[in-house]
């Protein structure tokens, strides 16, 4: 489980990649990203989450995004990524991931 706190923007990109990469590459474990405390996201952050999803999918590894604040959800909806994230969450649940 990964909790993202604060702003997931261009300034935070490197730190995020560094923190998440080792977890992303471990296909044996379920990866859940919690967004409760995310105060800001833009296309940079959304791009990073989509990239993460692609990595996980390619490995056939489980991935879910949870506790999305309303203003973040709104941007997910606008940009069309909600579709992919909810699909990933469904799959993860189907194969028995628990948060």
């Amino acid at each position, binding site marked *: 489980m990964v909790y993202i706190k604060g702003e997931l923007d261009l300034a935070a*990109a490197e730190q995020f990649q560094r923190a998440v990469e080792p977890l992303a590459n471990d296909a044996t474990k379920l990866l859940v990203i919690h967004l409760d405390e995310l105060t800001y996201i833009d*296309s*940079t952050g959304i*791009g990073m989450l989509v*990239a993460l999803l692609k990595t996980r999918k390619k490995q056939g590894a489980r991935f879910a995004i949870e506790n999305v604040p309303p*203003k973040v959800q709104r941007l997910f909806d606008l*940009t069309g990524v909600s*579709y*992919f994230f909810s699909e990933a969450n469904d799959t993860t649940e189907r194969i028995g991931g628990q948060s």
Partner: protein
Amino acid sequence: MKEHETVVQLSIPADAQFIDIARLTLYGLAAKMGFSYEEIEDMKVAVSEACNNAVLHAYNGRRGMIHLRFEMSADALAIVIKDEGKGFDYKQVAKQAAPLSAKPIEDVKIGGLGLFLMEALMDDVSVTTADGTEVRLTKFRHRGEGEHAHECISPSSVQEQA
């Protein structure tokens, strides 16, 4: 500068570290003008997208600045985000500004959401690429009356209790 317009200007290095300073200033001014929380959040993202682009695409890794100009009038807040970088073919790029479509995730290309989000979150977007790039983002105030930008808030409040 138009009549009845109040202007604040901010220049920051074209470096990701400083984009949150642009957001802070935007927040302060938009709150003063009486924009709602949602409207302010929308503007924050749009302005950041324009700044992100200046950081990522304008200067090819060389040092440069981003100049922001906040134009407050009775009926709108316009934010002009300008760099002195290499510019780009806006007409061409604008055609591709769209949300991700529901295709298999493997085929989804990341990126190209910035201009789309600006369009989606602001009331008006215009881009000039004559000398670097100048993005002009406008949000109208949905209040009807033509009152002055200044009159609506005071940052402090005094409460009496007898």
